[in-house]
């Protein structure tokens, strides 16, 4: 591996590795976007990824749940090879059914929420549990109301997304992902489409989720969140991991010029 890696990785969490990203590359045509990413996320860990625009953070997250297919390397979640099956050393693409099954274990929250506009908040949340997991409507509704309560929106259950503020929509989106009871949550800049005064509500929900032991990979520009909640901070630039370690340490004492430069702009 030619990528510069920081050796001061202070693994705060001691859980088993849940996500293992091994020398992952991604090409869009001839555009080499991910250039050998190595990363491990342990159970219960909050792994925060920062980096300049275009560095490949979203692409990496999207590879973890197969919204993009990697070009080289391996991604494992628990013991599953994401997107492929290894038959005697030769990789076979997984059929759609198995990819869907892998995705059920991985929740994702998008920058632009992507709630289903024709469904109320409650209907958004019960959609996958009833349609994919075949839960009964009543059970799914009870669970959904619990989740809405958890994100502080119980009384908005029958509102359509268009009737909710951005922050409320994002919290519904988090509840929707949690309804599938994933073992891993991916957040792709969950607060960057929000008005500043709405950011806090969403971050609070994420913080509480982290405290409840959820394993999370969070791409964000919220340095405060990274410092306070993150167990690991990874700085990416131009498709490589430049530096990774304890968030407070990396921020106080960045080892690389590129990290220093980036942090000086966002801190």
């Amino acid at each position, binding site marked *: 591996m030619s990528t510069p890696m920081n050796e001061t990785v202070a693994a705060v969490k001691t859980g088993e590795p849940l996500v293992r990203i091994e020398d992952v590359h991604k090409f869009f045509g001839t555009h080499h976007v991910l250039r050998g990413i190595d990363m491990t996320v342990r159970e219960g860990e909050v792994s925060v990824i920062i980096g300049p625009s275009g560095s490949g953070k979203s692409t990496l997250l999207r590879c973890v*749940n197969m*919204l993009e297919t990697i070009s080289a390397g391996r991604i494992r979640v628990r013991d599953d090879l994401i997107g492929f099956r290894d038959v005697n050393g030769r990789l076979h693409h997984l059929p*759609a*059914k198995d990819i*869907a*099954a*892998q*995705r*059920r274990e*991985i*929740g*994702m929250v*998008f920058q*632009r929420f*992507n*709630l*289903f*506009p*024709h*469904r*109320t908040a*409650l209907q958004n949340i019960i*959609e*996958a549990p009833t*349609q*994919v997991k075949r839960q009964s409507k009543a059970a799914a*509704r*009870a*669970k959904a*109301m*619990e989740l809405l*309560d*958890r*994100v*502080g*929106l*119980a*009384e*908005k*259950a*029958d*509102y*359509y*997304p*268009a*009737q909710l503020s951005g922050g*409320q929509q994002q*919290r519904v*989106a988090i509840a*929707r*992902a949690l309804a*599938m009871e994933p073992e891993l949550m991916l957040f792709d800049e969950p607060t960057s489409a929000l008005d500043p005064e709405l950011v806090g*509500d*969403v971050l*609070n*929900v994420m913080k*509480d*989720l982290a*405290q*409840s032991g959820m394993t999370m990979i969070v791409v964000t520009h919220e340095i405060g969140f990274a410092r306070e909640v993150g167990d690991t901070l990874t700085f990416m630039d131009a498709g490589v991991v430049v530096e990774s370690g304890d968030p407070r340490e990396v921020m106080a004492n960045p080892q690389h010029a590129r990290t220093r430069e980036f942090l000086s702009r966002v801190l």
Partner: protein
Amino acid sequence: MSGPALSGTRSDKAAPARPELIDAVPVRHPGRWAGAVIIFIVAALLVQSLVTNQNFRWDTVGTYLLDVLVIQGIGWTLLLTVLSMVIAIVLAILLAFMRQSDNPLFRYVSWVWVWFFRGTPVYTQLVFWGLIAVLYPKIALGVPFGPELFSFSTQDVINAFIAAVLGLGLNESAYLAEIFRAGLKSVDTGQMEAAEALGMRKSKIMWRIILPQAMRVIVPPTGNETIGMLKTTSLVLAVPFTLDLTFVTNGIANRSYLPIPLLIVAAIWYLVITSVLMVGQYFIERHYGKGVDNLIPAPVKATQAVTAAHTTPATTADEGGHV
């Protein structure tokens, strides 16, 4: 927020005096008045001519408006419209999905279908379906170039009515397929990704997430096409199918030498059916506009569900989630 007396801040002051509301003189629109007068005069002239011109033969219109042959013609016209639109819609959904498929064969088949049925006149296609029994006297199902499993005479199965429905429906499916394709493309790609990320399968996503949102875009032009189809059914004499409204009223007109009143009879009925279809379209549009176009103030039954879901009543406020 216009809550009562915010404690502390303003309690010493009396409630602010009601402001003097503006009562301005509106802008005058003399042009509108002139336009209205002209339109009124033209309309009055039109009505006068309708009433006084004896050539309209309103008495004959009255006689035939509810004639049993005419009513039967309406029935056949409606049946042709509904059945051919049902066939067209089912095929169009299939064709639109195929066009978006990962399978290149499906994409080509869909493209060729639209190319062919949109590229030849519907009249030609109707004549062709009428002649299908000449072209294929027998329909047989079996292995290509191999043994036949079963067969039947084409004439027995594809009578004039079925030929008409097939001709209209297949032709229309090509136009609708493009409307459905545009509708599917209008849905944000984030919707597909969000549903995929939840572990939903493609077919389910299409049916439950993408298509319902696409319907907002699909329904208005499809309503247009349905009304168009209502009148295109008059071409079925090409098959020949001879029981529809236009053919029947034409027949009566020819026998009685009174073409104008019978054209009016047909026109009145086409207008009536179109109006009914427009009402139907209004409700369909309203259904698929839910959550986007027609945002009724949200109901409050949620609170009951909260108490059902918890043993302790929820005490959450809107602000600040707590897990």
